[in-house]
């Protein structure tokens, strides 16, 4: 296997393919970001463009429901600004006395309550995802620790059981889970989306592998000799040792929870509780068909946090995938 001309051509072709794939990975997002800054006529003329325009604020206002209204003084009258009013021919408008007429002072007010609100979606997604991440990581570590550090009768049975549970596709339980939550009166609340994270079999599996490989049980023995209680041993000694694993998995759990669409669609019913993916569904029809830039901008705002997270943590994420912490499709 000597590097020769054949290999050189192969290398060029492979680089070319990789560049094409890179462009493919990025292109839709570039179009999205660029179109967020363009006006509707611009997009209608030429939807595929790489030159950003300056309609970002206009699109933002349309998206959030801001309307230009006149500023009113204490008595409710309009206040004139110092801009003259011109008619369609470009001539200044004169009033009855032949004086210039001035435009009223305008400001933007959020008059229209649009159902789509990326800030609300962000807040809800953040709350739920943080809750899920903390619960999932803590209790998975605890369960894995129970499996590794102690000898007890059902230890192996439970682990085999956890492996089996990993295989259950999530959507099979959804109908029953919805009925269960409905009867408990938990629809439109956060807890049905956060509490189930306590039982995360894939995470238990991963933490157990990590602990078997990297957790020195002598430390636990030492702590016992020193008189520490088991629970505080776990919290004070074991958990800090798990930091690397926890850190990588935390990102996956967080992003997985953030991107979850099915369960929040069913369980969260009011506008104020909607998570980001559920919010995205509202970006259709209505003004988003007439002000296309607003639709692109709405999508961009839902995607932007993930971009930021990704490009900060990309190395850890890729390392984590390699070790094997991936959610299924």
């Amino acid at each position, binding site marked *: 296997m000597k590097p020769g001309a054949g290999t050189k051509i192969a290398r060029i072709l492979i680089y070319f393919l990789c560049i094409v*794939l890179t462009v493919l990975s990025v292109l839709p997002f570039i179009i999205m970001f660029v179109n967020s800054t363009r006006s509707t006529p611009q997009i209608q003329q030429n*939807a595929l463009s790489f030159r950003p325009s300056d309609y970002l604020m206009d699109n933002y206002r349309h998206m959030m429901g801001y309307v230009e209204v006149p500023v009113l003084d204490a008595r409710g009258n309009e206040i004139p600004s110092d801009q003259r009013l011109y008619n369609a021919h470009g001539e200044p408008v004169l009033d009855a006395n032949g004086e210039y007429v001035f435009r009223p002072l305008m400001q933007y007010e959020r008059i229209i309550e649009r159902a789509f609100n990326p800030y609300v979606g962000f807040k809800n997604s953040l709350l739920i995802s943080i809750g899920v991440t903390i619960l999932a990581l803590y209790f998975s570590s605890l369960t894995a620790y129970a499996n590794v550090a102690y000898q007890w009768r059902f230890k192996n049975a439970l682990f085999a059981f956890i492996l089996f549970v990993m295989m259950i596709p999530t959507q099979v339980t959804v109908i*029953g889970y919805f*009925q269960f939550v409905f009867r408990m009166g938990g629809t439109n609340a956060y807890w049905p989306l956060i509490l189930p994270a306590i*039982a995360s079999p894939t995470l238990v599996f991963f933490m157990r592998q990590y602990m078997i490989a990297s957790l020195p049980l002598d430390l636990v023995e030492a702590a016992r000799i020193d008189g520490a209680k088991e629970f505080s041993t776990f919290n004070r000694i074991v958990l800090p040792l798990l930091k690397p694993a926890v850190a990588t998995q935390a990102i996956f759990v967080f992003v997985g929870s953030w991107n979850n669409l099915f369960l929040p669609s069913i369980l969260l019913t009011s506008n104020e509780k909607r998570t980001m*993916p559920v919010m*995205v569904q509202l970006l259709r029809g209505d003004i988003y068909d007439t002000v296309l830039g607003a639709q692109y901008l709405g*999508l961009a705002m839902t995607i932007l946090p993930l971009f930021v997270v990704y490009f900060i943590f990309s190395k850890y994420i*890729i390392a984590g*995938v390699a070790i094997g912490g991936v959610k299924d499709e």
Partner: protein
Amino acid sequence: MKKERKLAKRINYAKYGYIFSIPFVLAFLVFQLYPLVFTTAIGFTNMQGSVMLGSGLSEATFTWNTVVDGGSELQMHSDVSPEYATNRSVTWEVIPGTGNAIINANGLLTAIDNGAVTVRAMANDDSGVYDEFEINILGHIEPVRAINLANSTRTITSVGGTLRINAEIYPENATTQSIVWEIIPGTGNAFINATGLVTAVADGTVTVRATSIDGTNVSAELELTISGQTTNGLTPFVPVSEISVVSESAEIYTDNGILQLSMEVYPADAGRYNVSGENIRHTPPTARWEVISKTGDARISNQGQMTALANGIVIVRATATDGSEVFGEKEITISGQDEPSVPIAELTISSANDSTVISIEGHTLRPLHYFNDVLNSPLFRTALRNTIFIWLMNFIPQIVLALALAAWFTNSMMKLKCVGFFKIMFYMPNIITAASIALLFNTLFGHPIGPVNDFLMRVGFTGESINIMVGIFAEPFGFRIFNAQLIVAFIQFWMWYGVTMIILIAGIMGISPSLFESAAIDGASHFKTFIHVTLPSLRTVVVYVLVTSFVGGMQMFDIPRLFNNGQPHNSTLTTSLFIFHQAFEGAQRFNRAAAASMIMFVIICVVSSILFFVTRDRDAAQLRREYKARERARRASE
């Protein structure tokens, strides 16, 4: 002694194993096991009531194996393709077979006689497209034998006064209880609505007639006397008896051209009169305008000004708003429009819950009822076909590309640079919310304005913008492949090939280098090494990727839902989307949704097990078996 102490300590601490596992076990029981059992149970039973999402919650009761409610009605649905056809309306009719039924304009089928009937829906736009569906009517139909209009009050004396007529139907258990009302004017006149409420119009006598719609044509009549409608010899309300629609021309031939229409009313003195003292004020009757698209399309304002939209024929209708529901129509021909009229290409009719049976008495629910129901449902079968097809179109290119990339990226001879950068870029689509991506792609493929269409037009592939999302890609052997299916498959591929590649790279890195060295010593080429050394060693990893991709693919929801909600023509309807629609939209049939969930569970389990079994490491299993046998023999001889 130390060992004893350690042993003693071990036994003591075992309880913490249990204690620390409790939260997990509890959470699993409550949040996964109970719902799973519940789902199975719902699939086996007849859950009554409905649960409204997004509004006040209503009740849901829960009963085992009861009789499914029968009835004499079945709602039919029509699905029209393409989505942007100018006139999407259809006309329903029933062709009697051994049985008979009637159908109303909204597609509600009412059984009249046992046997088979054919329901036909015909497109209204002269395209000639139609579809048929056969329904079987089972059970005993009790015909209406008599109707009794028993009103003690038979007069109306106030101006515009109303009177409700009560109809009693004999026998009480007649299968179809619906009746049609009409007024036969005598010396007087009145209106009657669908619920039997009479509104007085003119003094005199009128006859109210009620007729049963179940085909027996049983009817009853009642005479009413109306008085007090005139003041000073003047009738305050003269209803319209005829309307004709008039206009200068019967054509529009300019693009977005306008035609003003008006109405002529008969009798000339129709309208309302208000008498106040000396003055009599006459309010002429008004009409509401509407356009009925046939092959063309137009819109009309409240004042009768019509603007053309698409070439073809439209009918302008003016309906009097005075309660008489009298209308007049005129046919207008439109030409010269820029916007073409689009005929219906295809029409599919189905029934509520895909039922092919109207069962009058209902039937006893057998335990596997809903499973059979779902398995036989054409919609579920379509969803299953789509899910498998889209997954295959996603996975096969994905695994091939990922294997190739993984091989190249780990090839020490190639020494490719920037591998880290490429990894970051290829993985990126996976982390973005699928919902946002789906909607983004929907917008990208927009019609008539969209980046993809723009690109295609600029490149010269097409002259005008195509509605890519509703198009059909190919039709090999009658199996239709929709563009939308390929796009959804592509989105999945695009989101997951990076992940697969990274996992495969990790797998390759884990292969012992000595294997590669010995292959090199034996003089194997890159390709041969890959096939005979790398791939076999990657077996477990590939199986892992295959199984997780399959499990995920069978549950594909986000992309089909946000891309076009399963449309066009249910081409991207996946089983998850089917379950979601059944449970949380429309009639909220949780039983069917639960049954479908269980069916998917079984499919996933069976296929996963088969995949694991077929790709198991036979050598290792054989070795393990031999080892176990040896151990047993050894222990037996000890």
